[in-house]
């Protein structure tokens, strides 16, 4: 099986996974008592039996579940994810409007977590058992243990309220109407607190992972060969130890990307970041089932794609791994 066949095969699998996700979540969502009609009726402040019945008929909620599912799957196959009950807009449009924000935040968190984690892990691995190693270990445990929403709130309190260095919420300053570079700078400022909050947990994992991997590789024979060549310790560490230690990180980075892409519901909500996470939260509270299902579908597709990307990245990082083998 060559590269292209492998990728084609994986895309087929992605489609199958997506269908499975749709079917499962379609039924799962309907397990909860009540439906969109109850929520809408509640919002309108007026409801009698006839009104509810009309609403249900309008949205097709009065039909048997399998029929609803079949209709929904048919529509999804044509790229129509339905209409949001609450927003009265096509679901796909709503998601695509929010998706870039989540991806931007994720990319930032991913880069910070990997760069910071590898750096800290490298320091810890240089002299195992030293003060530096102990400090990194304690820091990592701390980042693991602290709940993200609390970390987020504390960050807001310290950096936005007390120190007033950074904006506490949103993606841009409201009403400022920046353009060009000024706008980018404004977004970057808004991104720092939620991005760091998201990154720290993963940063701790990377630090631990890097430390372990580097210590393991440091005992490998080829590191001895490198020293026998007479190259400097710095080059031994960079070219031989770190280069090999980074391979397992690829897998973890893929995992992190998959976790983040669904939108971090907690962190996005703490910082009112207009991404998929806040959207999902709103959809759940409003019983906006079409929107929620749409989010599931897009997330499932993205997660599958990230897994594929991880495999491709892995085969690049490690020449021993061939795609499809």
């Amino acid at each position, binding site marked *: 099986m060559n590269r292209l066949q492998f990728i084609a095969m994986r895309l087929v699998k992605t489609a199958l996974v997506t269908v499975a996700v749709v079917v499962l979540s379609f039924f799962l969502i309907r397990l909860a008592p009540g439906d969109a009609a109850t929520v809408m009726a509640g919002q309108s402040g007026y409801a009698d039996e006839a009104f509810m019945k009309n609403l249900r008929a309008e949205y097709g909620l009065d039909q048997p579940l399998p029929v609803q599912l079949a209709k929904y799957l048919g529509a999804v196959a044509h790229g129509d994810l339905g209409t949001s009950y609450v927003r009265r807009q096509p679901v796909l449009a709503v998601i695509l409007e929010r998706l870039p924000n989540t991806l931007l935040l994720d990319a930032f968190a991913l880069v910070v977590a990997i760069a910071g984690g590898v750096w800290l892990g490298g320091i810890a691995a240089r002299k195992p058992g030293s003060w530096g190693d102990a400090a990194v270990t304690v820091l990592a445990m701390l980042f693991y243990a602290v709940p993200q929403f609390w970390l987020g709130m504390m960050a807001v309190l310290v950096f936005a309220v007390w120190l007033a260095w950074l904006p506490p919420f949103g993606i841009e300053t409201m009403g400022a109407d920046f353009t060009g570079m000024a706008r980018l700078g404004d977004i970057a400022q808004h991104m720092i607190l939620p991005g760091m909050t998201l990154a720290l947990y993963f940063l701790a994992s990377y630090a631990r992972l890097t430390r372990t991997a580097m210590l393991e590789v440091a005992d490998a024979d080829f590191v001895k060969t*490198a020293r026998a060549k007479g190259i400097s310790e710095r080059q031994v560490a960079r070219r031989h130890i770190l280069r090999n230690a980074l391979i397992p990180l690829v897998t973890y980075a893929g995992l992190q990307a998959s976790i983040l892409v669904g939108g971090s519901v907690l962190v996005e909500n703490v910082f009112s970041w207009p991404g998929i996470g806040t959207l999902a939260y709103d959809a759940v509270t409003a019983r906006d089932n079409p929107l929620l299902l749409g989010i599931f579908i897009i997330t499932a597709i993205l997660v599958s794609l990230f897994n594929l990307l991880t495999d491709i990245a892995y085969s690049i990082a490690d020449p021993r791994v061939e795609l499809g083998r």
Partner: protein
Amino acid sequence: MSLVSTRDLTVTLPPDTDRAHAVDGVSLEIAKNEIVCIVGESGSGKSITAHAVMGLLPRGVRATGGEILFDGVDLLKEAPDAMRKRRGRDIAMIFQDPMAALNPVVAIGKQVTEQIRAHCAVTERVALAQAADLLGQMGLKDASGLLKAYPHQLSGGQRQRVMIAMALSLLPRLLIADEPTTALDVTTQAQILKLIKRIQAEREMSVLFITHDFGVVADIADRVAVMRHGRVLESGATAQVLREPAHSYTRALIAAVPSGDNLLAPLPDAAPLMAVTGLTKRFRRGGFFARNAVTAVDNVSLTLKRGETLGIVGESGSGKSTLARCVIRLLDPEEGEILFDGADIAHLSPRGLKPLRRRIQMVFQDPFSSLNPRQTVADIITAGPRAHGESAKAALARAADILRLVGLNPETMHRLPHEFSGGQRQRIGLARALMLKPDILIADEPVSALDVTVQAQVLKLLDDVRRQMNLAMLFITHDMRVAAQVCHRVMVMRHGQVVEAGPTRDVFAAPSSDYTRALLAAIPGRGTL
């Protein structure tokens, strides 16, 4: 004059180890243009001595006494940076396992040029041209293609040639070779030994060669030093030490090299216990769409009588282990039949196999990874009988007898595997197999991970047990010398096919195929020992 001389070299181990010194007052001389072998078993300190000369002792291990004079300069007093500059330029080193010694994710070319560019201010292009030239000198074909390849794409012999090319790139005055052929096939080993000898003579280089094999010593060394427990027991010109070893340990080491004398005679004719006909096993490569399959075992037939040992000899990739795994039905063969006690077991269902499993047992190569480190010896060796319905109490009672049979103290059965040495662990592995009272014992390279003197003991034990229990034994090995010691008949395999088969005496005295002749010729020390 000596290029290297160590005087009373002492290397101290970290406080929590079982002994204080890895090397204890070692004095060695290596003259210009000579090959000196240090020979010894694991734990003798031979490798640590070499690493001390290189200035590459493991973490926590330090040279605490004596001196290492290199061209008159004491290397132990050199500043770390000066020592680093010597490494690769004045002193180069090659290692045992050429797969592990090359960085798996860096292309070969880059690894060779790194060595050159660490000491010479040349561009990558110049260094690459130099690297290609070096690989050519090492007898490697298609050098420019190899430079772009990664280590896993090369064979063991090619990798070791790359290592040697790398080590020689800056014309070092001393080459340290730490068991450079131990991980290689015999025929490859013979080629690499020849290569090292040729290069040494051409460049008038000094070589410090570490080995556990007196056969290799006989082939390559000008002088030899025998080490044990961190001390040099005896040293001198190779011919002299081989002819008149002064120390009893040296005599034991030389005697442990199988000589090929007193070979076992074939057993008289009898009905075979097992008869394999036309066995074929293919492995599909790649995934679902793969068209190309590798035939690992190709139409192999054999018979095995009670009380008989059949040796299956072959180099890595010859299919000998796959054959064994098919016979014991750990793998499912595609074609052929395996008649065991009259019934064909080649295509028996797992359920049908279960009662037979007990009767065919296996001893594995690696005594370290083949025992569960978290189970006591008693648990390990009674697990099989208990699975076949024997009560724990009865199994334990028998365990004591079996342990005694394999030469272990039954009182140690409540210990964990790590408390035993390699040889003892292999005895535990054998006890585990014998607990099930098998009819057939399959031994897959049972001694290749062991020291020579331990090897001899375990081989004798296997042979004794075979006699006592009238076992049929399938003995898999890459080593013709080992096969000669315990096998009534041998079967030589290559590329999945049987090249030659017959009574051991006949095959050794008059091999009928070129490949067998090559295998026999490649045995180190042949003719000298």
